[in-house]
């Protein structure tokens, strides 16, 4: 699960990491009020940042500075009017602008190949780490945390020295260890601070000092661990979530809405992706990824049918169940019941493999449902069925579905 910058920062702050103060605003006047507070506390400028769960907001004009409350309100209004990569901006984060001396990159993530937590750092902060990796891989330091003990002090020091932060050793060590602590405390897959910034501040006696702060933060949480962190569930951004995603999650169905016309219902993620690939190969476009999981229980089949038909773009449904141990006739009956309960009817092509597959085919054909033996055949038939329905009628625009 992705969470917004403000929530990510609160998780870092809970581990004692230095994060500048912030306020989230849902409208320009709230942004203005937040800016006023920061100006009153001594800020010279504030930064207003779009809160969206997609990258590239900076390039899209979603991050801007303001020197007065008026300007902050105007900038917030402009950003709240943006749509970034298809996501309308509904919130902004307001924060005092930092006087940045240098920017670094620091992240902790799950490294599948090494089966460890990997901490990556670079003295080239503020840009995507993939760019740095492509351009100058030697500029990235990589350290695997101890599988039992987490990031050790000496490992954190090594990262700090590699980033040229020897003069801020203690702070850098605390931050590197803090990223891993944040990861472990919340079962995050990724905790990224980019930029980690060395900022200049003026102390109470007018003496300038430099310190490290986490200017931006990105955290993604391990979905498998969410049940044991109920407090993190509150960070799910329902603003950006399709209501059907919620419905899918409720039924333990993996569902991802896509742009095509062939609704897919498959058991198993790999087979579901393969089904999508074969639809495309047969000249069609999948309307979704949908994995109903193991067992193909009747209630899940019904929920999956509802999810697929809620997408007005869908003009045919391809069901591909490799039963293995599941009884095919039960799946077939469940499908017919689920379809009967729906108001909208679209052509359905069903392929069921496994125990009692022949009986399943008889049941389906008796109900005038098209069947297929091979997956390739099923994909081809589904594409043909969708084509027969013809170009979409007056379907709702997909935006309305969000």
């Amino acid at each position, binding site marked *: 699960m992705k969470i917004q910058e403000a929530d990510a920062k609160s998780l870092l702050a809970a581990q004692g990491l230095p994060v500048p103060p912030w306020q989230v605003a849902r409208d320009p006047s709230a942004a203005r009020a937040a800016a006023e507070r920061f100006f009153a506390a001594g800020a010279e400028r504030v930064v207003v940042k779009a809160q969206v769960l997609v990258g590239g907001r900076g390039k899209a004009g979603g991050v801007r500075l303001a020197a007065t409350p008026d300007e902050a309100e105007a900038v917030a209004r402009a950003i709240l009017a943006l749509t970034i990569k298809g996501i309308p901006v509904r919130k902004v984060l307001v924060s005092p602008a930092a006087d940045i001396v240098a920017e670094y990159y620091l992240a902790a993530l799950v490294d*599948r190949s090494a089966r460890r937590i990997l901490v990556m750092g670079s003295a080239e902060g503020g840009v995507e780490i993939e760019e740095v990796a492509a351009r100058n891989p030697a500029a990235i330091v990589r350290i695997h945390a101890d599988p039992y003990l987490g990031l050790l002090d000496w490992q954190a020091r090594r990262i700090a020295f590699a980033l040229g932060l020897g003069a801020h050793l203690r702070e850098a060590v605390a931050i590197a260890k803090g990223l891993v602590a944040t990861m472990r405390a919340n*079962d995050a897959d990724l905790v990224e601070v980019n930029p980690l910034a060395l900022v200049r501040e003026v102390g109470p006696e007018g003496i300038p000092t430099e310190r490290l702060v986490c200017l931006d933060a990105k955290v993604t949480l391990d979905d*498998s661990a969410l049940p044991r962190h109920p407090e993190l569930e509150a960070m799910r951004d329902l603003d950006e979530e399709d209501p059907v995603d919620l419905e899918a999650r409720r039924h333990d169905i993996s569902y991802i809405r896509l742009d095509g016309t062939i609704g897919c219902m498959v058991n*198993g993620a*790999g087979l*579901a992706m393969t089904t999508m690939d074969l639809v495309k190969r047969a000249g069609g476009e999948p309307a979704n990824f949908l994995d109903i999981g193991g067992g193909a229980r009747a209630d899940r089949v019904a929920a999956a049918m509802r999810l697929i038909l809620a997408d007005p773009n869908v003009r045919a449904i391809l069901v591909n169940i*490799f039963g293995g*141990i599941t009884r095919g006739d039960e799946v077939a009956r469940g499908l017919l019941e689920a379809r009967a309960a729906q108001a909208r009817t679209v052509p359905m092509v069903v392929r069921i493999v496994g125990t009692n597959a022949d009986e399943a085919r008889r049941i389906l054909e008796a109900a005038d449902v098209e069947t297929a033996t091979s997956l390739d055949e099923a994909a081809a038939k589904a594409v043909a069925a969708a084509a027969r329905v013809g170009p979409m009628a007056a379907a709702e625009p997909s935006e309305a579905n969000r």
Partner: protein
Amino acid sequence: MSILVGRSTRLVVQGITGREGEFHARAMLEYGTPLVAGVTPGKGGQRAVDGRVPVFDTVAEAVEATGANTSCIFVPAAGAPDAILEAVAAGIGTIFCITEGIPALDMIPVVAAVEAAGARLVGPNCPGATSPGEAKVGIIPGAIHRPGRVGVVSRSGTLTYEAVQAMTDAGIGQSTCVGIGGDPIVGSSFVDVLRLFAADPETGAIVLIGEIGGSAEEEAAAWAADHLADRPKVAFVAGRTAPEGRRMGHAGAIISGGRGTAASKVAALEAAGFLVASSPSEIPALLRSAGVRD
């Protein structure tokens, strides 16, 4: 011969009295797997699967009483990491963890401990392994197999069944079929399994079934280029049409930052001498064209 599971397997099922555990234990027994014991803490002394399997409170007791050397774990996610560690401590050499939904960070110390003990873990969130005609451990349907000489390794569940069924239908048998699981942290990688196949004289060819996300397929390709150059190799990669940044079911299957794409994996596999199918149904024909006969 075969790898991981076979005639010398003596299996203990951890979580045998649960719904899933008992169901699949029965299927394994029916396949002819030497399933010698079950473990459910607190149910020691009972018998499971219609009285055919003795149940013990601990894996250590099961090992002592039955000589079990392989474990298959159906324990729920909260207890599965501990079940793996219990199996390791009891001296079990080969552990299959079927359980899904284990948080990735829970698995990190566990895989380290398995490795330190010199044991082997397959999974979690894997379907298990079958050596057709010898033994099946896990949840892969027994009926799809046919004994033969092709080693199959996959990150998927039902997609593997699809590919294996296609091979069996075409008369091409398998030495062992292994599902390594799609979770971010798994005990055995493609390379780990390929290493076993490379050492198995009865495995004449390889089928590798990958999917988007991570770099396991690229690593497998590099290893196979060096160590399996002389054997026919066929691959399939799921997710060619998957969009970037969206997680496709498994925590594993995601393309991010331009990495983990199907195109990159297909290219690496082809460069390593794999014939790459564009549908699972093409796998048998590609195996034939690479010289596989049965």
